[in-house]
């Protein structure tokens, strides 16, 4: 299987940003500072999208840059694509009653 790269922006993050096109089954090498770990992509992840570094339960906070970028709308598997289908933004949401503040 091919080895592909993804970047972690902050040690607290539970997602990484892919810097190559990733196919299901690819080994994804994730580097943060000097530390490198590898996980298996469970689905295709395009260049510049996000891969889950661990299983993320529904409702759990999704972190990038060490900050909240939203909540998991459903259970997200390790190695899965994280995007609008499973990540819910929590700010400026007029569709949620009274909105939601983090």
């Amino acid at each position, binding site marked *: 299987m091919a080895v592909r790269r993804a970047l972690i922006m902050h040690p607290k993050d539970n997602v990484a940003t892919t810097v190559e096109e990733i196919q299901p089954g690819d080994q994804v090498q994730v580097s943060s500072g000097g530390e490198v770990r590898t996980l298996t992509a469970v689905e295709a992840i395009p260049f510049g999208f996000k891969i889950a570094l661990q299983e993320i339960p529904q409702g759990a906070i999704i972190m990038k840059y060490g900050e909240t970028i939203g909540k998991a709308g459903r259970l997200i598997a390790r190695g899965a694509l994280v995007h*609008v289908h499973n990540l819910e933004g929590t700010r400026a949401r007029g569709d949620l009653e009274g909105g939601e503040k983090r």
Partner: protein
Amino acid sequence: MSFFGYIRPDGSVGTRNYVLVIPQGLIAKSICDFVAGTRTILTVDHGSGRTANDRERIARVLIGLGRNPNVASVIIHAASPGVGYPELKAERLADEIAASGKRVEVIDPVKDGGVYEAIAKGIQLARMMVYEASKLRRVETGDEHLCLGVKCGYSDTTSGIAGNPAVGYLFDKIVKAGGTAFFGETTEIIGAEHALAKRAVTPDVAKAILNAVAHREALAKSTGLDIRTINPIPANIKGGLSSLEEKSLGAIHKAGTSPIQEVLQYAEKPKNKGLFFVDNWMGSYSIFAGYAAAGSNLVMFQLGGGGLAGRNLLEGSPSIVSPFLWLTSNPKTYAMARDNIDFYSGTVIEGREDPEQVGERLYRTVIDIASGTLSRSETLTYVEPIDLYLEEPRF
């Protein structure tokens, strides 16, 4: 290092040397079509039917453009529909621009015998003003005279990783040298406002940042819509951004790490130097005109572009008197639109350069263009119209 610029009577330094003809309209456009080296503002926002606050905002744009260091001299015509309002009287605009020591001429169809005659007089004046301006030579000057403005757009995840951090490095360097830098787009700091507020020079400035965001977020909620149907825009989502917070947290990297001096309104010129947050919106037809009116002598659009396709010719954004640069860190965007791109920072993503090397390279590009090298968009004659950022109802 330093750049070569045009020294103005008030001590400010231009990166360009135009004759500006304002306000918008037939007279201004006709003069500019006829005379090389001129600039005007193309917009339908002339002030008629607008509130006093919005009329003052239009006046601020026009006066600010006239005072911009890239302008050598100014012609004002008295035939705009808004000219009857006290804020927009030709004499008022002329007086406030002339206070900077520049030559300002007023033409008036009533006094000059009609619109044809005013155009003819304007053409004659503009030719000689452009000729006089051309006698001025660039001289070497310090980076404290740079005033930069940035917007990030068609953002994707490369923007937060490499493109915006490169701009942040540049901003830190210019601010450290005593220069000025503007960033803004209030909707696009929602989710990242606390990190910015911590960098405010006083608690009042921190409060102003948080208030600007609270106001904008309340407006967003009042729509009853999922903000993701508006912003992030479809091209952002296609480029990998999943929420407004994610976009914001990447966007603020373009502001570097310097202290934030103040929250400025649209087209408001700061009283001192340093890094400023401008409470504006993301529209590129609005934002760059506002930066130029606030004194920017060079502006840049940090482009993601992952969600764009087939756009190998980019139309640029209207900055009227200030050179406009396209930057990108997305290798696909760079491959697609290479002719248009002034600077590529995707080398960081490709592992070929570190952020400091890229930042230094961007700085040298900015110095070159500030010194007279054309930006790619300056090689086109096409100019987009301006959508002035006015916030109050019209009547």
